[in-house]
């Protein structure tokens, strides 16, 4: 049964306020396809009934609210997605960090909106395969996602056959995975490099370590301009000066933020932080970013 205009507006406002994802009326098909399974799980007969339940406690912290918010996020991901960002990671970004931070010996990489973890583990595999000299470094690959279920999946590192078929080179499959029934478990030397936690990019950010590299790919496309600006402003503060930001192929900082330079590398590009606010001199090398209030989204 189609949602009434009133219910759709309520739902769109809830999703916007809790995740900053913008649902326009032409996305009604998406709402139906994503929320019908939620309605069944909750035990109500229709999305209309689901919305009624949500109206009773319209927060992302409620059981129904979190299920609705999670269902409306997109979890499309696969290993080595788009290939080029991992090429630039290997050929330029990590070698430059090794050059620059030889004494510090720390490397922090953030996979923002990591979904089930394929991007974070692809990064880990690039490091393992191509940078054995980093074995003595303190490496943190931090995956965050709005969905608790996705964060748990990232921590587990268990993937279906369809997932390991997508983008994962076969030599890396045999090297880093073991088969467990019909699923594939990533080995502990990679899971130990990846940490994962729940984080709403459009909400209050938890404390994060200063990042050398941020992967924020195919995420900004779901947000309005104001939210994009707020997120990029905070990303710039999380990045070390000169740190690298990788966006999706169809995303840009142009007309959104002036804090980044576009750097061409081979046949692709990334963004480099122009500097961002400096932390106080007493701050230790792997420091924490002070809480930054979100702009424009009150939740």
């Amino acid at each position: 049964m189609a949602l009434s205009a009133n219910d759709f507006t309520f739902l769109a406002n809830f999703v916007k306020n809790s995740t900053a994802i913008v649902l326009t009326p032409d996305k009604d098909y998406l709402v139906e396809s994503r929320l019908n399974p939620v309605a069944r799980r909750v035990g109500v007969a229709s999305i209309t009934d689901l919305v009624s339940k949500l109206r009773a406690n319209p927060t992302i912290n409620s059981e129904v609210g979190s299920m609705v918010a999670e269902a409306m996020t997109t979890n499309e991901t696969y290993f080595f997605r788009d290939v080029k960002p991992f090429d630039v990671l290997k050929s330029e970004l990590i070698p430059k960090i090794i050059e620059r931070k030889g004494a510090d010996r720390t490397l922090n990489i953030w996979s923002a909106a990591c979904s089930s973890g394929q991007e974070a583990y692809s990064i880990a595999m690039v490091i393992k395969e191509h940078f054995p000299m980093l074995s003595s470094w303190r490496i943190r690959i931090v995956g965050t996602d709005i969905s608790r279920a996705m964060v748990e999946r990232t921590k587990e590192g268990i993937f279906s056959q369809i997932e390991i078929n997508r983008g994962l080179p076969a030599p890396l499959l045999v090297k880093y995975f073991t088969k467990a029934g019909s699923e594939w478990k990533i080995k502990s030397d990679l899971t130990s490099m990846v940490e994962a936690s729940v984080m709403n990019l459009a909400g209050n950010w938890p404390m994060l370590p200063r990042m050398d590299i941020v992967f924020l790919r195919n995420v900004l496309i779901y947000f309005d301009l104001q939210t994009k600006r707020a997120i990029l402003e905070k990303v710039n503060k999380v990045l070390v000066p000169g740190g690298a930001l990788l966006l999706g192929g169809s995303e840009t900082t142009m007309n959104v933020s002036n804090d980044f330079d576009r750097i061409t590398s081979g046949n692709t590009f990334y963004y480099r932080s122009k500097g961002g606010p400096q932390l106080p001199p007493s701050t230790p090398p792997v420091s924490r970013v002070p809480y930054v209030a979100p702009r424009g989204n009150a939740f």
Partner: protein
Amino acid sequence: MALAMVIDDSSATRMILARILGELGYTVEKAENGADALHKLSKMSRPELILIDWNMPVMNGYEFLVKARSMPEYDNVTMMMVTTETEIEQVLKALEAGANEYVMKPFTKDIIDEKLSLLGLGAR
């Protein structure tokens, strides 16, 4: 257009893979088993890419792979297994015999495209 070959004893799978490769810009030759493929390869231009099923009558895909890799003229041909064999030992066996990539059935166009992109052979 780049030339590819699909080797599979299932006519439906041959047709689906040929359609996918066609959409990615390849001209596709089809063979029903390894022996049929070797026969056809001897009479055609060298393909850039060969997709190989494992379990087939007459000559299976692994036997074809070993034979083709023993022939220097196919050194530079990319060979990708597309098979229902899903054990890690089989993947390793195929890689050691010279397969460049490995896809487990069922597959989609995206899966084939993503694997080919890894090999620098995405959409032509």
